[in-house]
Protein backbone atom coordinates (compact mmCIF):
# COMPACT_ATOMS: atom_id res chain seq x y z
CA UNK A 1 0.00 0.00 0.00
CA UNK A 2 1.46 3.35 -0.94
CA UNK A 3 1.09 5.93 1.79
CA UNK A 4 1.53 8.80 -0.65
CA UNK A 5 -1.11 11.45 -0.12
CA UNK A 6 -2.94 9.58 2.65
CA UNK A 7 -2.65 12.53 5.05
CA UNK A 8 -2.55 16.32 4.99
CA UNK A 9 -0.89 18.87 7.23
CA UNK A 10 -3.78 21.16 8.10
CA UNK A 11 -2.36 23.04 11.08
CA UNK A 12 1.11 24.51 11.56
CA UNK A 13 1.99 27.07 14.21
CA UNK A 14 5.23 28.41 15.60
CA UNK A 15 5.42 30.07 19.01
CA UNK A 16 6.61 33.66 18.63
CA UNK A 17 8.59 33.61 21.87
CA UNK A 18 12.35 33.26 21.81
CA UNK A 19 12.79 33.60 25.58
CA UNK A 20 10.11 32.35 27.93
CA UNK A 21 11.22 32.52 31.58
CA UNK A 22 7.61 33.07 32.67
CA UNK A 23 5.98 30.28 30.67
CA UNK A 24 6.19 26.72 31.96
CA UNK A 25 7.34 24.00 29.60
CA UNK A 26 3.95 22.31 29.54
CA UNK A 27 2.14 25.59 28.99
CA UNK A 28 4.45 26.22 26.03
CA UNK A 29 3.48 22.85 24.53
CA UNK A 30 -0.20 23.59 25.08
CA UNK A 31 0.03 27.07 23.56
CA UNK A 32 1.64 25.55 20.48
CA UNK A 33 -1.08 22.89 20.30
CA UNK A 34 -3.77 25.54 20.54
CA UNK A 35 -2.10 27.64 17.88
CA UNK A 36 -1.90 24.75 15.41
CA UNK A 37 -5.46 23.56 16.11
CA UNK A 38 -6.79 27.12 15.66
CA UNK A 39 -4.83 27.35 12.43
CA UNK A 40 -6.47 24.14 11.20
CA UNK A 41 -9.94 25.09 12.41
CA UNK A 42 -10.11 22.00 14.60
CA UNK A 43 -10.79 21.51 18.31
CA UNK A 44 -8.65 19.77 20.89
CA UNK A 45 -11.58 17.34 21.19
CA UNK A 46 -10.92 16.23 17.61
CA UNK A 47 -7.40 15.05 18.49
CA UNK A 48 -7.15 11.28 18.81
CA UNK A 49 -3.45 10.84 18.02
CA UNK A 50 -0.61 12.57 19.88
CA UNK A 51 3.06 12.70 18.99
CA UNK A 52 5.48 14.11 21.56
CA UNK A 53 9.21 13.32 21.58
CA UNK A 54 10.09 11.76 24.94
CA UNK A 55 12.86 14.27 25.63
CA UNK A 56 10.62 17.29 25.13
CA UNK A 57 8.40 16.84 28.15
CA UNK A 58 8.59 16.01 31.83
CA UNK A 59 7.08 12.69 32.83
CA UNK A 60 6.90 9.45 30.90
CA UNK A 61 6.97 10.11 27.16
CA UNK A 62 4.15 12.51 26.40
CA UNK A 63 1.81 10.97 28.94
CA UNK A 64 1.75 13.91 31.36
CA UNK A 65 1.46 16.31 28.46
CA UNK A 66 -1.56 14.43 27.09
CA UNK A 67 -3.21 14.65 30.49
CA UNK A 68 -2.34 18.36 30.86
CA UNK A 69 -4.17 19.07 27.61
CA UNK A 70 -7.05 16.71 28.35
CA UNK A 71 -6.36 14.48 25.34
CA UNK A 72 -8.21 11.16 24.97
CA UNK A 73 -6.12 9.15 22.56
CA UNK A 74 -6.35 6.15 20.30
CA UNK A 75 -2.78 6.57 19.10
CA UNK A 76 0.22 7.62 21.19
CA UNK A 77 3.81 8.01 19.97
CA UNK A 78 6.74 9.40 21.97
CA UNK A 79 9.44 8.62 19.40
CA UNK A 80 12.47 10.80 20.06
CA UNK A 81 15.19 11.24 17.46
CA UNK A 82 16.35 14.61 18.77
CA UNK A 83 15.94 17.55 16.41
CA UNK A 84 14.50 15.43 13.59
CA UNK A 85 11.71 13.99 15.77
CA UNK A 86 8.99 16.16 14.21
CA UNK A 87 9.93 15.22 10.66
CA UNK A 88 9.67 11.59 11.77
CA UNK A 89 6.37 12.29 13.47
CA UNK A 90 4.89 13.49 10.18
CA UNK A 91 5.75 10.13 8.64
CA UNK A 92 4.52 8.19 11.65
CA UNK A 93 1.28 10.17 11.73
CA UNK A 94 0.81 9.45 8.04
CA UNK A 95 1.12 5.72 8.77
CA UNK A 96 -1.25 5.89 11.72
CA UNK A 97 -3.85 7.82 9.76
CA UNK A 98 -3.55 5.64 6.63
CA UNK A 99 -4.05 2.48 8.70
CA UNK A 100 -7.08 3.88 10.51
CA UNK A 101 -5.41 4.19 13.91
CA UNK A 102 -6.35 7.84 14.31
CA UNK A 103 -8.05 10.69 12.47
CA UNK A 104 -6.46 13.86 13.80
CA UNK A 105 -2.82 13.75 14.87
CA UNK A 106 -1.25 16.49 16.97
CA UNK A 107 2.55 16.95 17.14
CA UNK A 108 4.05 19.36 19.67
CA UNK A 109 7.53 20.65 20.52
CA UNK A 110 8.50 23.03 23.29
CA UNK A 111 11.77 23.81 25.07
CA UNK A 112 13.38 26.48 27.27
CA UNK A 113 17.18 26.02 27.02
CA UNK A 114 17.74 29.80 26.91
CA UNK A 115 15.79 30.53 30.08
CA UNK A 116 17.39 27.57 31.78
CA UNK A 117 20.89 28.82 30.92
CA UNK A 118 21.93 25.67 29.13
CA UNK A 119 25.40 25.77 27.50
CA UNK A 120 23.88 23.98 24.60
CA UNK A 121 26.64 23.72 22.04
CA UNK A 122 29.93 24.05 23.85
CA UNK A 123 29.63 21.88 26.96
CA UNK A 124 29.80 18.08 26.77
CA UNK A 125 26.56 16.58 28.07
CA UNK A 126 26.97 13.84 30.67
CA UNK A 127 24.56 10.97 30.29
CA UNK A 128 24.05 7.64 32.03
CA UNK A 129 27.07 5.36 32.28
CA UNK A 130 24.90 2.56 30.89
CA UNK A 131 24.95 4.42 27.59
CA UNK A 132 27.79 2.22 26.39
CA UNK A 133 29.72 4.76 24.34
CA UNK A 134 29.77 7.38 27.09
CA UNK A 135 32.87 6.15 28.96
CA UNK A 136 34.78 6.08 25.64
CA UNK A 137 33.66 9.52 24.48
CA UNK A 138 32.74 11.88 27.33
CA UNK A 139 36.29 12.14 28.78
CA UNK A 140 37.45 13.62 25.46
CA UNK A 141 35.03 16.54 25.67
CA UNK A 142 32.58 15.96 22.82
CA UNK A 143 30.20 18.92 22.60
CA UNK A 144 27.72 19.65 19.86
CA UNK A 145 29.93 22.28 18.23
CA UNK A 146 33.17 20.31 18.05
CA UNK A 147 31.39 17.18 16.79
CA UNK A 148 29.95 19.08 13.82
CA UNK A 149 33.29 20.83 13.44
CA UNK A 150 34.97 17.45 12.93
CA UNK A 151 32.50 16.68 10.15
CA UNK A 152 33.27 20.09 8.61
CA UNK A 153 37.03 19.52 8.86
CA UNK A 154 36.80 16.18 7.06
CA UNK A 155 34.55 17.68 4.37
CA UNK A 156 37.13 20.43 3.83
CA UNK A 157 39.92 17.85 3.65
CA UNK A 158 38.21 15.57 1.14
CA UNK A 159 36.43 18.09 -1.07
CA UNK A 160 38.23 21.41 -0.62
CA UNK A 161 35.20 23.03 1.03
CA UNK A 162 36.13 26.45 2.48
CA UNK A 163 35.02 28.53 5.47
CA UNK A 164 33.83 31.18 3.02
CA UNK A 165 31.55 28.66 1.31
CA UNK A 166 30.10 27.58 4.67
CA UNK A 167 29.59 31.25 5.52
CA UNK A 168 27.28 31.67 2.52
CA UNK A 169 24.75 29.47 4.32
CA UNK A 170 24.58 31.96 7.20
CA UNK A 171 24.50 34.89 4.81
CA UNK A 172 21.48 33.40 3.01
CA UNK A 173 19.69 32.67 6.29
CA UNK A 174 20.28 36.26 7.43
CA UNK A 175 18.84 37.64 4.20
CA UNK A 176 15.62 35.79 5.06
CA UNK A 177 15.67 36.61 8.78
CA UNK A 178 15.56 40.36 8.10
CA UNK A 179 11.87 39.93 7.20
CA UNK A 180 11.00 37.82 10.26
CA UNK A 181 9.96 40.08 13.17
CA UNK A 182 10.58 37.25 15.63
CA UNK A 183 14.09 36.35 14.42
CA UNK A 184 16.81 36.50 17.06
CA UNK A 185 19.42 37.62 14.52
CA UNK A 186 17.56 39.80 11.99
CA UNK A 187 20.63 41.65 10.72
CA UNK A 188 21.98 40.74 7.28
CA UNK A 189 25.58 39.52 7.58
CA UNK A 190 28.39 39.16 5.07
CA UNK A 191 30.77 36.28 4.38
CA UNK A 192 33.54 38.37 5.93
CA UNK A 193 31.55 38.88 9.13
CA UNK A 194 30.97 35.14 9.44
CA UNK A 195 34.59 34.08 8.91
CA UNK A 196 35.84 36.89 11.17
CA UNK A 197 33.50 35.99 14.04
CA UNK A 198 35.22 34.27 16.99
CA UNK A 199 36.26 30.67 16.47
CA UNK A 200 34.14 28.34 18.61
CA UNK A 201 35.25 24.90 17.48
CA UNK A 202 37.75 25.16 14.66
CA UNK A 203 36.79 25.35 11.75
CA UNK A 204 33.35 26.56 12.92
CA UNK A 205 32.97 30.21 13.94
CA UNK A 206 30.31 31.65 16.18
CA UNK A 207 28.25 32.69 13.16
CA UNK A 208 28.46 29.16 11.73
CA UNK A 209 26.36 28.06 14.72
CA UNK A 210 22.61 28.25 15.23
CA UNK A 211 21.03 30.37 17.96
CA UNK A 212 19.91 29.08 21.36
CA UNK A 213 16.26 29.85 21.98
CA UNK A 214 13.16 28.96 23.90
CA UNK A 215 9.93 28.31 22.07
CA UNK A 216 8.20 25.56 20.19
CA UNK A 217 5.70 24.69 17.55
CA UNK A 218 2.97 22.25 16.62
CA UNK A 219 1.48 20.46 13.64
CA UNK A 220 -1.96 19.00 12.99
CA UNK A 221 -2.17 16.16 10.48
CA UNK A 222 -5.37 14.51 9.33
CA UNK A 223 -6.95 12.25 6.72
CA UNK A 224 -7.94 13.59 3.27
CA UNK A 225 -11.72 13.52 3.93
CA UNK A 226 -11.33 15.77 6.99
CA UNK A 227 -8.69 18.02 5.40
CA UNK A 228 -11.03 18.80 2.53
CA UNK A 229 -13.75 20.07 4.90
CA UNK A 230 -11.40 22.68 6.43
CA UNK A 231 -10.93 26.21 5.18
CA UNK A 232 -7.15 25.96 4.78
CA UNK A 233 -4.93 25.40 1.73
CA UNK A 234 -4.46 21.67 1.14
CA UNK A 235 -0.91 20.53 1.89
CA UNK A 236 -0.56 16.84 1.18
CA UNK A 237 2.16 14.55 2.56
CA UNK A 238 3.55 12.80 -0.53
CA UNK A 239 6.89 11.49 0.69
CA UNK A 240 8.54 10.55 3.98
CA UNK A 241 11.72 8.73 4.84
CA UNK A 242 13.90 8.07 7.85
CA UNK A 243 17.30 6.50 8.42
CA UNK A 244 20.06 6.33 11.00
CA UNK A 245 23.77 6.88 10.57
CA UNK A 246 26.52 5.97 13.04
CA UNK A 247 30.17 5.06 13.42
CA UNK A 248 29.10 1.45 12.95
CA UNK A 249 31.77 -0.01 15.23
CA UNK A 250 34.61 2.12 13.96
CA UNK A 251 35.76 0.09 10.95
CA UNK A 252 34.33 2.47 8.37
CA UNK A 253 33.99 5.86 9.98
CA UNK A 254 32.86 8.35 7.33
CA UNK A 255 31.82 11.79 8.53
CA UNK A 256 31.29 13.18 5.03
CA UNK A 257 27.71 12.04 4.65
CA UNK A 258 24.55 12.03 6.75
CA UNK A 259 21.48 9.85 7.16
CA UNK A 260 19.80 12.21 4.70
CA UNK A 261 21.32 10.12 1.93
CA UNK A 262 19.01 7.24 2.82
CA UNK A 263 16.01 9.10 4.26
CA UNK A 264 15.96 11.39 1.23
CA UNK A 265 16.09 8.49 -1.21
CA UNK A 266 13.13 6.84 0.51
CA UNK A 267 11.10 10.07 0.52
CA UNK A 268 11.81 10.88 -3.13
CA UNK A 269 10.96 7.32 -4.18
CA UNK A 270 7.66 7.45 -2.32
CA UNK A 271 6.79 10.85 -3.79
CA UNK A 272 7.86 9.79 -7.27
CA UNK A 273 9.78 13.00 -7.85
CA UNK A 274 13.39 14.19 -8.20
CA UNK A 275 15.30 16.83 -6.21
CA UNK A 276 15.08 19.14 -9.24
CA UNK A 277 11.28 19.18 -8.77
CA UNK A 278 11.76 20.96 -5.41
CA UNK A 279 11.75 24.76 -5.50
CA UNK A 280 11.87 25.34 -1.74
CA UNK A 281 13.66 23.29 0.92
CA UNK A 282 13.76 23.55 4.70
CA UNK A 283 17.14 22.09 5.63
CA UNK A 284 18.19 21.48 9.24
CA UNK A 285 20.73 24.15 10.09
CA UNK A 286 22.27 23.48 13.47
CA UNK A 287 25.50 24.64 11.81
CA UNK A 288 26.39 25.82 8.33
CA UNK A 289 28.12 22.49 7.57
CA UNK A 290 24.89 20.65 8.38
CA UNK A 291 23.17 22.37 5.46
CA UNK A 292 26.00 21.75 3.00
CA UNK A 293 26.19 18.04 3.77
CA UNK A 294 22.45 17.46 3.75
CA UNK A 295 21.97 19.27 0.42
CA UNK A 296 24.49 16.87 -1.09
CA UNK A 297 22.96 13.84 0.59
CA UNK A 298 19.45 14.75 -0.54
CA UNK A 299 20.68 14.97 -4.11
CA UNK A 300 20.43 18.72 -4.74
CA UNK A 301 24.05 18.57 -5.87
CA UNK A 302 26.80 15.94 -6.10
CA UNK A 303 28.69 14.80 -3.01
CA UNK A 304 31.52 17.21 -2.37
CA UNK A 305 30.01 20.06 -4.37
CA UNK A 306 27.83 21.44 -1.57
CA UNK A 307 30.25 24.26 -0.81
CA UNK A 308 30.06 25.49 -4.36
CA UNK A 309 26.29 24.95 -4.47
CA UNK A 310 25.55 27.21 -1.49
CA UNK A 311 27.88 30.01 -2.63
CA UNK A 312 26.98 33.31 -4.22
CA UNK A 313 23.50 33.48 -2.77
CA UNK A 314 22.16 30.28 -4.31
CA UNK A 315 20.04 29.65 -1.19
CA UNK A 316 18.57 33.18 -1.07
CA UNK A 317 14.93 33.50 -2.09
CA UNK A 318 14.53 35.55 -5.25
CA UNK A 319 18.26 35.27 -5.97
CA UNK A 320 19.32 31.63 -6.03
CA UNK A 321 18.07 28.36 -7.43
CA UNK A 322 17.13 26.72 -4.15
CA UNK A 323 15.69 29.07 -1.52
CA UNK A 324 16.06 27.50 1.93
CA UNK A 325 14.85 28.31 5.46
CA UNK A 326 13.01 31.46 4.48
CA UNK A 327 12.11 32.17 8.13
CA UNK A 328 15.81 32.60 8.91
CA UNK A 329 16.04 29.04 10.21
CA UNK A 330 17.98 27.90 13.23
CA UNK A 331 20.95 29.97 12.15
CA UNK A 332 19.09 33.28 12.58
CA UNK A 333 15.49 32.88 13.77
CA UNK A 334 15.16 30.22 16.46
CA UNK A 335 16.09 26.70 17.51
CA UNK A 336 13.42 25.94 20.10
CA UNK A 337 14.47 23.37 22.64
CA UNK A 338 17.72 22.83 20.70
CA UNK A 339 15.56 21.05 18.14
CA UNK A 340 15.06 22.52 14.70
CA UNK A 341 12.96 19.94 12.86
CA UNK A 342 9.58 21.37 13.85
CA UNK A 343 10.27 24.84 12.46
CA UNK A 344 11.63 23.23 9.29
CA UNK A 345 8.27 21.56 8.67
CA UNK A 346 6.32 24.70 9.65
CA UNK A 347 8.16 26.96 7.20
CA UNK A 348 7.78 24.35 4.46
CA UNK A 349 4.01 24.35 5.11
CA UNK A 350 3.97 28.17 4.96
CA UNK A 351 5.81 28.05 1.65
CA UNK A 352 3.47 25.39 0.23
CA UNK A 353 0.45 27.43 1.30
CA UNK A 354 1.88 30.66 -0.07
CA UNK A 355 1.85 32.11 3.47
CA UNK A 356 5.57 32.81 3.90
CA UNK A 357 6.60 36.47 4.17
CA UNK A 358 5.96 38.09 0.75
CA UNK A 359 9.62 39.08 0.48
CA UNK A 360 10.72 35.45 0.69
CA UNK A 361 7.72 33.54 -0.67
CA UNK A 362 8.80 31.32 -3.56
CA UNK A 363 6.56 31.88 -6.58
CA UNK A 364 4.85 29.28 -8.76
CA UNK A 365 5.78 26.15 -6.93
CA UNK A 366 3.81 23.34 -5.36
CA UNK A 367 6.29 20.84 -3.93
CA UNK A 368 8.43 21.53 -0.86
CA UNK A 369 10.81 19.52 1.29
CA UNK A 370 11.68 19.60 5.00
CA UNK A 371 14.67 17.64 6.22
CA UNK A 372 15.91 17.14 9.77
CA UNK A 373 18.95 15.66 11.47
CA UNK A 374 18.72 14.70 15.13
CA UNK A 375 21.74 13.70 17.16
CA UNK A 376 25.16 14.56 15.79
CA UNK A 377 26.84 14.42 12.39
CA UNK A 378 30.04 13.66 14.31
CA UNK A 379 28.81 10.55 16.11
CA UNK A 380 25.33 9.15 15.50
CA UNK A 381 22.10 10.63 14.26
CA UNK A 382 18.73 9.99 12.69
CA UNK A 383 17.65 11.86 9.59
CA UNK A 384 14.13 12.31 8.35
CA UNK A 385 12.81 13.80 5.14
CA UNK A 386 9.28 15.03 4.45
CA UNK A 387 7.99 16.05 1.02
CA UNK A 388 4.76 18.04 0.78
CA UNK A 389 2.61 19.08 -2.15
CA UNK A 390 0.12 21.94 -2.36
CA UNK A 391 -2.99 20.59 -4.00
Amino acid at each position, binding site marked *: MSLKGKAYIVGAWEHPTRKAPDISLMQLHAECAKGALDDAGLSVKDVDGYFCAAGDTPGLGGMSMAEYMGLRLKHYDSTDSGGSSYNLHVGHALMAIATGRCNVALVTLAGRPRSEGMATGTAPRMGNVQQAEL*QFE*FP*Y*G*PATANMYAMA*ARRHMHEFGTTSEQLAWVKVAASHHAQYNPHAMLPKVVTVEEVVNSPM*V*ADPLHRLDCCVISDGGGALVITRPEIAKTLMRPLVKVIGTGEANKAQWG*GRDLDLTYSAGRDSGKAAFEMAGIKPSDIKYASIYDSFTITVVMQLEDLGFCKKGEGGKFVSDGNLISGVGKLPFNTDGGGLCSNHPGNRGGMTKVIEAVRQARGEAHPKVQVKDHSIVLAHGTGGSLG*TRHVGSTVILERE
Partner: protein
Amino acid sequence: MSERVYQFVGTTPGTEPYWEAAKDGKLLLRYCKDDGKPHYYPRQICPYTFSTNLEWREAKGTGVIYTYSIMHAAKPPYVIAYVTLDEGVSMMTNIVDTPFDQIKVGQKVKVVFKDMDDGHKLPCFTAA
Protein backbone atom coordinates in the same frame (compact mmCIF):
# COMPACT_ATOMS: atom_id res chain seq x y z
CA MET B 1 45.91 28.53 32.31
CA SER B 2 44.46 25.61 34.22
CA GLU B 3 45.18 22.01 33.23
CA ARG B 4 42.50 20.07 31.45
CA VAL B 5 40.72 17.58 33.73
CA TYR B 6 39.76 14.22 32.22
CA GLN B 7 36.67 12.97 33.98
CA PHE B 8 36.31 9.21 34.39
CA VAL B 9 32.73 8.17 33.68
CA GLY B 10 32.87 4.62 35.10
CA THR B 11 32.91 1.13 33.65
CA THR B 12 30.13 -1.20 32.64
CA PRO B 13 30.36 -4.98 33.10
CA GLY B 14 32.95 -6.21 30.60
CA THR B 15 34.83 -2.97 29.99
CA GLU B 16 37.05 -3.14 33.09
CA PRO B 17 39.99 -4.79 31.22
CA TYR B 18 40.20 -1.79 28.86
CA TRP B 19 40.60 0.66 31.72
CA GLU B 20 42.89 -1.60 33.77
CA ALA B 21 45.20 -2.03 30.75
CA ALA B 22 45.22 1.73 30.21
CA LYS B 23 46.65 2.12 33.73
CA ASP B 24 49.57 -0.01 32.49
CA GLY B 25 50.01 2.07 29.35
CA LYS B 26 48.31 -0.40 27.03
CA LEU B 27 45.53 0.32 24.53
CA LEU B 28 43.28 -2.71 24.16
CA LEU B 29 40.96 -3.42 21.26
CA ARG B 30 38.03 -5.78 21.26
CA TYR B 31 38.33 -8.39 18.50
CA CYS B 32 35.70 -10.65 17.04
CA LYS B 33 37.14 -14.15 16.84
CA ASP B 34 34.66 -15.04 14.10
CA ASP B 35 35.92 -12.55 11.53
CA GLY B 36 39.27 -11.76 13.18
CA LYS B 37 38.74 -7.98 13.16
CA PRO B 38 38.45 -5.32 15.86
CA HIS B 39 35.61 -2.93 16.60
CA TYR B 40 35.53 0.29 18.62
CA TYR B 41 34.21 1.28 21.13
CA PRO B 42 34.47 -2.13 22.82
CA ARG B 43 31.25 -4.07 23.22
CA GLN B 44 30.15 -7.47 24.53
CA ILE B 45 28.76 -8.35 21.12
CA CYS B 46 30.38 -7.63 17.76
CA PRO B 47 28.38 -5.00 15.84
CA TYR B 48 29.49 -6.53 12.53
CA THR B 49 28.88 -10.26 13.09
CA PHE B 50 26.66 -10.13 16.21
CA SER B 51 28.99 -12.77 17.62
CA THR B 52 29.76 -12.96 21.34
CA ASN B 53 32.97 -14.87 20.61
CA LEU B 54 35.27 -11.95 21.41
CA GLU B 55 38.72 -11.30 22.88
CA TRP B 56 40.95 -8.39 23.88
CA ARG B 57 44.19 -7.74 21.98
CA GLU B 58 46.71 -4.99 22.50
CA ALA B 59 46.82 -2.33 19.75
CA LYS B 60 50.12 -1.06 18.38
CA GLY B 61 49.09 2.39 19.53
CA THR B 62 49.79 4.14 16.25
CA GLY B 63 47.50 5.65 13.66
CA VAL B 64 46.61 8.78 11.69
CA ILE B 65 44.29 11.71 12.40
CA TYR B 66 41.02 11.22 10.47
CA THR B 67 39.63 14.60 11.56
CA TYR B 68 39.92 17.00 14.49
CA SER B 69 38.62 20.23 15.97
CA ILE B 70 40.31 22.69 18.30
CA MET B 71 37.74 23.67 20.93
CA HIS B 72 38.49 27.36 21.34
CA ALA B 73 35.31 27.90 23.34
CA ALA B 74 36.82 25.91 26.24
CA LYS B 75 39.36 27.11 28.78
CA PRO B 76 41.93 25.77 28.19
CA PRO B 77 41.23 24.92 24.54
CA TYR B 78 41.59 21.24 23.69
CA VAL B 79 41.79 19.18 20.54
CA ILE B 80 39.19 16.50 19.95
CA ALA B 81 39.82 14.08 17.10
CA TYR B 82 39.09 10.78 15.50
CA VAL B 83 42.23 8.72 15.02
CA THR B 84 42.21 5.76 12.64
CA LEU B 85 44.40 3.12 14.23
CA ASP B 86 46.72 0.93 12.17
CA GLU B 87 44.41 -1.97 13.06
CA GLY B 88 41.68 -0.30 10.98
CA VAL B 89 39.26 1.11 13.53
CA SER B 90 38.73 4.77 14.35
CA MET B 91 38.35 6.10 17.87
CA MET B 92 37.38 9.40 19.39
CA THR B 93 40.30 10.87 21.32
CA ASN B 94 42.23 14.02 22.16
CA ILE B 95 45.43 15.17 20.48
CA VAL B 96 47.77 16.30 23.26
CA ASP B 97 51.27 17.72 23.73
CA THR B 98 51.29 18.88 20.10
CA PRO B 99 51.33 22.52 18.95
CA PHE B 100 47.99 23.37 17.34
CA ASP B 101 49.65 24.43 14.10
CA GLN B 102 51.22 20.99 13.69
CA ILE B 103 47.89 19.17 13.82
CA LYS B 104 46.45 18.16 10.47
CA VAL B 105 44.31 15.47 8.90
CA GLY B 106 46.55 12.54 7.98
CA GLN B 107 49.14 13.38 10.68
CA LYS B 108 50.74 10.21 12.11
CA VAL B 109 50.16 9.91 15.82
CA LYS B 110 51.00 7.57 18.71
CA VAL B 111 49.16 6.83 21.92
CA VAL B 112 50.01 8.50 25.23
CA PHE B 113 48.14 8.08 28.50
CA LYS B 114 46.85 11.03 30.50
CA ASP B 115 45.91 10.97 34.18
CA MET B 116 42.19 11.11 34.84
CA ASP B 117 40.52 12.66 37.87
CA ASP B 118 40.33 9.40 39.83
CA GLY B 119 43.55 7.48 39.09
CA HIS B 120 42.45 5.95 35.80
CA LYS B 121 44.38 6.80 32.64
CA LEU B 122 42.99 7.94 29.32
CA PRO B 123 44.42 6.99 25.92
CA CYS B 124 45.18 10.17 23.96
CA PHE B 125 47.43 10.72 20.97
CA THR B 126 50.39 12.90 20.13
CA ALA B 127 52.31 13.57 16.91
CA ALA B 128 54.49 10.55 16.06
